[in-house]
């Protein structure tokens, strides 16, 4: 069990008042807050060890390189990657997915090939594949969704076929909270020789993820959604796949030898890290992983499960509350509408009570179309949220309802 009161003390932003009310931050699916430990790691790096990595002989350069590569080791262990060669630092999940799209899919796919995605994908795991389709002549195919927001699995064999070269699927939906059956999808895909790229932006921060146990080909996730700094993300890739891919960005660090007319590439993972990396970002992510490890990812996940169950129970009692997505299994977030009150209005009213939620399409417009809404509200939880936050949310929603009762 998490001790939320203790955890909160580690988050300097939590002391804050918004419009006179204590901040209740429920926009964690967008980005999470940062504990003192992560902020301190960044400060410490700049105050004691800042230098460029991999190239310098002097003490600071050695220190910076060591800390940067140590962060990579932490990521490696966190997702149980076979080696640090599998772990590439990027800016965010979006870039990680684009690396696979540019360096693998655009290289290997051809007309007649099929890319299987789902209608619940975040734009970052959809638009890159639309572009791959456009440029290679491959075709997009969509796994179907059941009315409750789960993926339909009984006809998966008709969608993932011999023509499939790639399946791009999110492990956890950032709107519906759906946890997708990645294991089954991977098994099916591998049976037909297809590769699987998993969007872990909403899973890696919240549940234990083991790339070897799941047998993933690629996994993308973002540091800023798991207590880490902005500007740092990860692409995990199987070594043979990474080896088969062309480099993505070209420049310093990623080369071994350069002549006027040509160049040779560095070994993994540097082949995919051109230019000076976000060194402080990687180190901050390492500190975030230390923090999560200390809590235990199983405990993090249990905490969120309990909280989201409580939230659904509490919110469904509100007149006009409509939940989107399945009840179980689900990640620690709830997307909903409140009668006819526009989500923008809900979010604005909640903000005047200090409650931060998100309103909009959550970068999943096709899913919004599927739900037949232009926008939804979304409250998303993390380790520093507790039942009291849900209660504040619920009572603010009741007040919102009342405020708009005579108009909407």
């Amino acid at each position, binding site marked *: 069990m998490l001790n939320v009161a203790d955890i909160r003390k580690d988050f300097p932003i939590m002391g804050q008042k918004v419009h006179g009310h204590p901040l209740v931050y429920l926009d964690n699916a967008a980005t999470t807050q940062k504990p003192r430990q992560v902020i301190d790691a960044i400060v410490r790096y700049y105050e004691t060890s800042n230098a460029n990595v991999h190239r310098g002989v002097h003490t600071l350069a050695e220190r910076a390189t060591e800390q940067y590569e140590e962060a990579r080791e932490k990521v490696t262990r966190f997702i149980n990657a076979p080696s640090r060669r599998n772990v590439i630092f990027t800016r965010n999940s979006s870039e990680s997915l684009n690396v696979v799209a540019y360096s693998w899919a655009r290289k290997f796919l051809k007309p007649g090939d099929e890319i299987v995605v789902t209608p619940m994908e975040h734009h970052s795991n959809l638009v890159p594949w639309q572009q791959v389709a456009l440029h290679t002549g491959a075709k997009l195919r969509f796994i179907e969704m059941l009315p409750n927001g789960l993926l339909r699995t009984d006809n998966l064999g008709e969608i993932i076929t011999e023509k499939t070269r790639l399946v791009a699927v999110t492990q956890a939906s950032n709107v519906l909270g759906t946890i997708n059956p990645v294991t089954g999808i991977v098994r099916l895909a591998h049976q037909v020789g297809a590769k699987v790229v998993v969007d872990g932006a909403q899973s890696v921060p919240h549940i234990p993820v083991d790339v070897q146990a799941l047998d993933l080909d690629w996994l993308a996730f973002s540091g800023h959604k798991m207590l880490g700094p902005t500007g740092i993300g990860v692409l995990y890739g199987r070594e043979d796949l990474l080896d088969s891919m062309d480099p993505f960005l070209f420049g310093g660090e990623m080369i071994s030898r350069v002549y006027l007319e040509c160049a040779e590439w560095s070994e993994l993972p540097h082949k995919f890290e051109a230019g000076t990396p976000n060194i402080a970002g990687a180190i901050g992510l390492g500190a975030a992983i230390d923090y999560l490890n200390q809590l235990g990812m199983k405990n993090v996940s249990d905490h969120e499960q309990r909280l989201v169950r409580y939230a659904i129970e509490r919110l469904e009692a509100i007149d006009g509350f409509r939940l989107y997505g399945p009840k179980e299994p689900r990640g620690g977030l709830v997307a909903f509408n409140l009668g006819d009150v526009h989500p923008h209005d809900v979010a604005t009213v909640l903000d*005047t009570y200090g409650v931060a939620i998100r309103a*909009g399409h959550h970068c999943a417009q096709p899913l919004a179309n599927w739900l037949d809404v232009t*926008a939804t509200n979304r409250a998303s939880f993390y380790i520093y949220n507790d039942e009291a936050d849900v209660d504040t949310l619920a009572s603010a929603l009741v007040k919102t309802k009342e405020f708009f009762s005579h108009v*909407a």
Partner: protein
Amino acid sequence: MSLEDIYKDAIMDHYARPRGRGKLEHPVIVYHAHNPTCGDEIEVQANVEDGRIQDVRFSGHGCSISQASASMMTVAMKGKTLPEAKATLAKFLGMMRGEPGSYKELGEVQALQGVSRLPVRLKCATLAWHALEVGLSQHESGQSPRGPVHVLESKDL
């Protein structure tokens, strides 16, 4: 900021009973605006006769602010000459940008001033006005009344 500072009575009134909702038979001005952050869509249509905005309507969907603001805009614009309309538009956008000055002449539209302190909602409040502004300038430059969907981005108020 309190709820009442944002959702002034005039706004709630226009939201509950929108004026100028609908479409025109043969509009000479048609502009469709879209706010990608929230998915709101507003189409503004207008007719111009003898240099005067003879009628102006809005359709689409959105939050209370965008709907109320569109409704207010139709009231404010109807019957204005083109120069008057442009002056009012400029005045309104100036107010929403937070420029100091007196906005008395805008009448009940002043109720939207509180929204100027909410950058994201600002886009809701200016969506219809911005659509009319582009529609008017397309009209004046003789462009077809069916322009492309316009996307309002943050800060390009």
